[in-house]
């Protein structure tokens, strides 16, 4: 069954198309990497897939539901790691996640598990502002999995994660459908059997990882 279907997704900022007529289909449990140079449209595409941005035209279906009409419902099982961590600097790591547990309507006991998963259990009392960039990124990933989502949309989550980024992400993506935008071709090859290549907002098509060329 298809978890995510994008049909003719287009988004314009002014007259410039950031994403131009992109089609994609992702089956349940499948992982797909999105590759492309800076400005290719990766973040715009991922924001659309995460329902954070409404496309100018085109249709997005997630788990059989119209993604923008049923946005609130879909967000119960969608986890999104955005380009910026988007944390509350004055709150501790634990308090950040507890707050999002309240908004996600999940039990706060999930916080300890999420902290453990992203390797932040020992610093959960520290304020987000005191954490390194990599730790903040881990905390943002922990926030995205609090509600145990079936679909993960990851926008360059490896940007400052360090050496064990691939293992961490592999663990998170296991058993879930995932879209991963990255500049790291080796990481994309390792984690995603399929790759979508974007150039100037247009899809150059999808391919298996062995055939990806720049």
């Amino acid at each position: 069954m298809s978890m995510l279907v994008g049909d003719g997704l287009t988004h314009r900022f002014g007259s410039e198309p950031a994403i131009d007529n992109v089609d994609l289909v992702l089956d349940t449990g499948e992982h797909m990497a999105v590759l492309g140079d800076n400005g290719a449209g990766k973040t715009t595409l991922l924001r659309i897939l995460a329902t954070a941005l409404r496309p100018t035209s085109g249709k997005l279906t997630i788990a059989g539901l119209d993604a923008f009409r049923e946005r609130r419902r879909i967000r119960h099982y969608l986890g999104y790691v955005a380009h910026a961590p988007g944390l509350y600097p004055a709150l501790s790591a634990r308090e950040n996640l507890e707050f999002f547990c309240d908004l996600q309507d999940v039990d706060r006991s999930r916080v300890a598990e999420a902290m453990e998963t992203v390797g932040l259990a020992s610093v959960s009392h520290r304020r987000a502002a005191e954490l390194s960039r990599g730790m903040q990124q881990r905390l943002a990933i922990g926030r995205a999995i609090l509600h145990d989502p079936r679909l993960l949309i990851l926008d360059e989550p490896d940007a400052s994660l360090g050496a064990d980024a691939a293992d961490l992400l592999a663990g998170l993506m296991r058993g879930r459908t995932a879209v991963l935008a990255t500049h790291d071709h080796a990481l994309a090859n390792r984690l995603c059997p399929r790759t979508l290549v974007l150039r100037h907002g247009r899809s150059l098509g999808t391919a298996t990882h062995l055939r990806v060329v720049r």
Partner: protein
Amino acid sequence: MSPLRVALAVARKDLRSEWRTREVVPALAQFIILALLIGNFGFQIDSRNATSIAPGILWLALVFAGLVAFGRTFAAEREQASLEAMLMTPASPVAIFAGKAAAASLLLIVCEAVMLPALSLFFGTPFSAQVVAAVLIATVGMAALGCLFAAIVARVRARELLLPLLTLPLWIPFIVAGGQAVQSAMGLPGSYSESISLLIDFDILFLVLTSLAARFVLDE
């Protein structure tokens, strides 16, 4: 999750952040004291004219303090890119808006707790429950409107300029009715109860309108 619980969680988060950073309240309290001082030195205040000048100074200080307090509510979220994370949850945007407006109102009320005794001290005007009630009732509607426009302008670069331009015209009814209520509470002619009724009407009207609009402002 119930909208009330979401609103409480958002308000608690904002108040906790403010308690730890002390970013808004000390600066606003200082601004209010300075505004009252300037008003005090700028006018020839005596026992005969204090009650007619003080309400004007009070609303002037309150309006500008409110603009800062409400402007920060969404600007800070945008700057730290946390608003999108919050809106990506299934929580109702209206509840998120209500929580933020409630927290900003509480911060302004803390400043009002400094302002009203200071007004009485500097201008020798009576400090009564009626004055406090008028200011608090006006704060509710002003907060709803101020936060709505703060959410709208948070995504543009010239937000500090746009927020007063959009908000001040719609705050005029509160300033007029609130000014009349405070003046009559200080012993000047005018019906206190009529002014308070008008303020409550404005509160209801703008609370309904902003809660209807908040969904569209925050969703897109």
